[in-house]
């Protein structure tokens, strides 16, 4: 039986509870901090739910500013997820399959936005695309002004979300290995055909989860956006920025919008998780 077949079977049995199985390597005391950690994640969300002013909820989340922020958030997060896919899939392929000097260093550099404070990312983007930035000046000559525009929001979100996609996909590519690609090439498939018909289908679950992570990260982006794109209603004020702003003036609205963000995130993850699992079992 081949290796992928067994791993697939392991994945299906893992979800089923088998009363005969005895867990190994699980000390009993681990349950206590594990439960504590679970509460630490769930409790704040529940607490937020208790603070929602349900009687006015509809009005709070359908105000003009809220609707424009939600629409902008969904549009920009979708656009940056697409940008991440266009740039990230080739990056992951090159990092996982290519052989060139400096590969190791490049792999570490790609991770930088992951560990960088988003505000610093915003400053970095401003120094690149800002009016007097590295590329900004020449772009201004061409009539392109990026900073403090919706494009800037997309760039800021892509900057912080890209590593999530690349890391997830590169890991899947490494796990899948090159052996199927070698077989496909020996059957006469060109590299593009191998990518389309073998490599990407095999890493489909990794690609889906990487895309979900990137979308979620883009949707929640705050620091880089406010630094690089500002907070103009309808142009750059995404939902997280709106939440932060409303928190000062109308805490009820902030809580209501926060819940909306949670709901959007849960829906996205549930939808793609379902499709991702379907893709893996195909």
């Amino acid at each position, binding site marked *: 039986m*081949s290796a992928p*077949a067994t791993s697939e079977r392991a994945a299906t049995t893992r979800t089923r509870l088998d009363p005969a199985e005895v867990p190994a390597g699980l000390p009993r005391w681990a349950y206590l901090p594990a439960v504590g950690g679970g509460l630490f994640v769930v409790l704040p969300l529940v607490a937020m739910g208790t603070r929602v002013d349900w009687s006015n909820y509809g009005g709070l989340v359908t105000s003009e500013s809220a609707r424009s922020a939600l629409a902008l958030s969904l549009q920009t997060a979708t656009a940056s997820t697409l940008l991440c896919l266009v740039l990230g899939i080739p990056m992951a392929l090159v990092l996982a399959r290519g052989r060139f000097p400096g590969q190791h260093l490049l792999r570490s550099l790609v991770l930088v936005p992951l560990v960088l404070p988003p505000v610093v990312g915003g400053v970095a983007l401003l120094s690149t695309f800002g009016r007097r930035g590295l590329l900004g000046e020449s772009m201004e000559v061409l009539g392109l002004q990026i900073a403090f525009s919706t494009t800037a929001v997309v760039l800021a979100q892509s900057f912080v979300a890209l590593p999530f996609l690349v890391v997830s996909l590169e890991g899947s590519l490494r796990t899948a290995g090159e052996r199927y690609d*070698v077989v496909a090439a*020996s*059957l*006469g*498939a*060109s590299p593009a055909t*191998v990518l389309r018909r073998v490599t990407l289908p095999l890493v489909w679950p990794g690609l889906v989860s990487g895309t979900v992570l990137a979308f979620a990260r883009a949707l929640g982006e705050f620091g880089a956006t406010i630094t690089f794109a500002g907070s103009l209603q309808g142009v750059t004020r995404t939902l997280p920025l709106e939440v932060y702003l409303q928190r000062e003036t109308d805490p009820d609205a902030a809580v209501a919008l926060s819940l909306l963000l949670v709901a959007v995130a849960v829906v996205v993850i549930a939808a793609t998780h379902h499709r991702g699992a379907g893709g893996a079992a195909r």
Partner: protein
Amino acid sequence: MTFELTATVPSRGLDVRLDVAAGRTLALLGPNGAGKSTALGLAAGTLRPHDGAITLDGRTLAGARDGRRTAWIAPHRRRVALLAQDPMLFPHLSVRENIAFGPRAQGTTRREAAARADRWLDAIDLADLADRRPAALSGGQAQRVAIARSLAAAPRLLLLDEPMAALDVDVTPALRQTLQHLLAEQTTILATHDVLDALLLADEVAVVDGGRVVERGPTAEVLSRPRSAFAASIAGLNLLSGTWTSDGVATAGGEVVHGHGAPDVALGVAMTAVCRPAAVAVHLDAPHGSPRNTFRATVRSLAPHGDLVRVRTDRLAADVTPGSVAELGLAPGREVWLAVKAAEVDVYPV
């Protein structure tokens, strides 16, 4: 001559010359790490030669002189299919789609590729599994599908790298039979360390050891008259080398081995003497009487060998009954005498 390979790969310690005629099967026999897979990698295009040339049907697949590439055809344009010990069926495609993969990749229409896949499924007797996923196949079925997939791509050269190694012993005979049938007209190189694969599937054998071809020739000849220690061990024969004297074959250890018949060779010519382990008798004391060849030896290991026990010593291997092992008290480290009748020893020039 359709396939010729002359190449060195210093990083893998490989320096070989191979050729296969159209429609023939060449077995690469050798121990693990001998360089068999490296040679196949050169033909498939997963490795580059440092020096040498690889040609198939007049096309130069790869060429290099002193590390500099002089010719290169990408793996997918070579028409060289590779099948390893794992079937490596694409897990996301059905059995039929797997077999149709090669024709599809080479531009055949979907309908024609599926029709071709169905013909191959009939040829391997698995038509009823066409719509299954590879995960639902047994190991033997999966390997048969993998063979059909390789052949459906209509390769000019098929490379088989230990195709039976990962299978249960009870399914290998059936698979060997399938291969025997399907490889009849197919130019093939088969890397194996199993003598049965070579006997049943190959027209010719090249014995590879330490990155070199140490012996080559028609299968029957190499296996019945081995000239290298590896070929002898794989053929299950004891081999002693030496030079021809008026008395017999003088080994480096100073013994003289007597064989049957009188080869017509000059004195001093390098000679090989072989005998079957079953012809070797084991004694605790120096034997008297008819056997002309006796050796003092120390038992190294005992292992089951069919109904018998194979006794390996520092000199020759002997097959004896379990009863004799118990009677003689044979165990590793035991000093014994080995005796072989001259009539059981085959002597020939190297």
